[in-house]
């Protein structure tokens, strides 16, 4: 039932996205492109936090590395954008693999702090490595090329952004349903239990960080297809928190939650710009509302309450267990 609903949702979304350029302005396409970047970022965050239960507060840094790598390769070597964004994603995957080593030695708040430190250090690099990043002056990105076709505006970039986002969504669902996805969730529930079940916990954690970083790097590359400028100030902790909010409010552990959280919060952020001085109050109220009435997020995994009845007629305990088959 659920997958039928998801399929219908996907078909409707695909139709809407396909006909959208015929009816809307370039500004709307810009917002959609940006939302798709948020979706890819949120899917990456979902893999490491939602699926594997590891704290990672370094997404803005990987996102930034993706932007600068793709932008630099594009500006200086005029690489086809597919190659330039793949290079950014590959580089972040390697860095994510190394950062994953932290996850083997730390957990919870300590892991969060370490990844946060990595994010801050990278922002410092973006800000101060003037010869490469142009430092605090910001980095200008020339229009990306694909077989000589220049992505000079949002309309031209739109099909590529949509296709790559769809591919990343497919990849996420595939990973989630694979053995690796099961291993991710086993580690999330308990390292020790996963180990007892024969899961290579170290490898799984490293994989989660690697994949998550690769997603963020790819999101950075996508950003360069329709945006012509990036400033290090927009690659700080605030961006990581924004993506984290999308995943948490959408519902930790749910692909649907990550996508709808990304779209919802991206849209709210843009729409609130029209609310002028009240926007922070409205944003705060929305967040508080979510935390009060849907603390586990809008599309969190539902946990079935199972009543176990004792044969000795003792008071029946209520135990929360995961619903079978729910992985995403």
């Amino acid at each position, binding site marked *: 039932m659920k997958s039928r609903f998801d399929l219908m949702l996907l078909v409707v979304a695909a139709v809407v996205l396909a006909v959208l350029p015929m009816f809307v302005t370039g*500004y709307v396409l810009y917002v959609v492109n940006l939302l798709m970047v948020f979706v890819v970022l949120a899917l990456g965050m979902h893999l490491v936090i939602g699926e594997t239960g590891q704290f990672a507060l370094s997404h803005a840094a990987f996102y930034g590395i993706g932007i600068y790598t793709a932008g630099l390769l594009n500006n200086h070597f005029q690489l086809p954008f597919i190659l330039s964004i793949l290079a950014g994603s590959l580089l972040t995957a390697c860095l994510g693999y190394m950062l994953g080593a932290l996850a083997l030695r730390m957990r919870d708040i300590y892991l969060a702090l370490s990844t946060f430190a990595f994010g801050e250090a990278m922002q410092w690099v973006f800000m101060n490595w003037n010869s490469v990043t142009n430092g605090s002056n910001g980095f200008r990105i020339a229009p990306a090329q694909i077989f000589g076709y220049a992505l000079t505006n949002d309309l031209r970039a739109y099909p590529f952004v949509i296709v790559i986002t769809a591919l990343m969504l497919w990849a996420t669902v595939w990973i989630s349903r694979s053995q690796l996805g099961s291993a991710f969730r086993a580690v999330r529930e308990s390292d020790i239990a996963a180990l007892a079940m024969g899961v290579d916990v170290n490898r799984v954690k490293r994989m989660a960080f690697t994949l998550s970083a690769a997603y963020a790097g790819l999101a950075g590359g996508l950003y360069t297809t329709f945006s012509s400028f990036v400033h290090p100030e927009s690659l700080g902790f605030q961006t990581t928190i924004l993506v984290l909010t999308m995943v948490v409010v959408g519902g930790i552990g749910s692909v649907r939650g990550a996508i709808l959280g990304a779209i919802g919060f991206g849209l709210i952020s843009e729409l609130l710009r029209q609310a002028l001085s009240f926007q922070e109050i409205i944003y705060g109220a929305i967040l508080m509302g979510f935390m009060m009435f849907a603390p586990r997020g809008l599309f969190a995994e539902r946990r079935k309450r199972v009543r176990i009845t004792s044969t000795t007629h003792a008071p029946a305990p209520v135990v929360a267990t995961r619903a079978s088959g729910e992985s995403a």
Partner: protein
Amino acid sequence: MTLRLRLTVLAASLCTLAHAAPALAQQEPGISEKTIRIGMFAPLSGSSMAYGFDPMNGAKMWYAKINKEGGIHGRQIELVIEDDRCNANDLVAAAKKLTEQDKVFLLNGGSCSAATVAAREYVEREKIPLVMLNASGDGALYPVSKYIYGAFSISQYAVGGSMVQFGAEALKAKKIGYINHDDAYGAWNLAAAKVQAKHLGDLPLNVQSVNSNINDVTAPMLRIRASNPDVLLLTTYARPAALIIKKAHELGFDKPIVLAVTGTADLRQLVENVGNKEAFKNVYIQDVLADVPGSPKLQWVYDMYKEAYPDLAARPGYPQPYMPYGLPSAMTVVNALKAAGPQPTREKVLEAMSTMKFDSGVMAGPIEFTPTDHAAQKAAIYLKFDGDKSTLVPGTFKSVWKYEP
């Protein structure tokens, strides 16, 4: 086809073309028979609101005045306003919305330099004029862009150079301490400060760069004190400036401190944040207005504000110090639209702006553009500020910095 039929078709075609010609002229975005639509953006919320809210009010009141006087060639100015939150992504979104959805004729906005620079590629691709509100926006002005004009308050390159010139000339400094931000405009004003120091015979410049969110300035202030400068120049925002002035007083640093215009958004608040008027015994502030705010020379601006926004003007702290900075940018737009004639096009407006020069009656120097320099204002005045009153130090001080491609 008979000759008569051919002639009829030809006549009909000519008639169609004759009717279509004015219609084509009307197709310039944002221009209708009765209105000219202008897109404005600035930080209107959040912590950077002081840089945008009241300058935008200043610009709006100038546009309202022009509308009251009959508009420009019979057209009323219509404003569409967006909040850019002082953030590059939000600013680009605002510029795209105004251009593509609201179909404005030109853009008049931007109060934060780093964010405004983000719009450069977009406005160049769309060929839409961008007249900055009060951002210095040096990163978008150099190298010169046909479509971008700014620095109506002052170019950041001019800020750093002018500060060093003032320190050396008016305060006779032989060694200079300099604290800037580690962001875009911090880098720009430092570049000019270095050029000025070199120009003045290699004046030693001890530079400490701080983050704009810094909470503890003890370390940079100790380093500054250790270098024993004759004057300390601050080109920071108001919050770090308050922390530094307070710390300087605590550390017994009694040399003159000169605060750049970027840190003077609300002097009353600055004194409150420092918490001790004694700390202002030897403080100077840079200003880019024609005279001390509230002086008879500038009274007309404040009277106009009171008339336009009586409720706001009655509130303490209003108008904010940066309010007048919004006027020269609106004046430039109005002058360029007037010069472009009754059938304005973006090209005509850009052409008019490229050689514009006028005295705004608001700023320290003239608003002056050339085809190779689109930074409007380069002069600064300095005031001795005792924590309460400001007294003008005679003269204006300019930077020698010149853009070299």
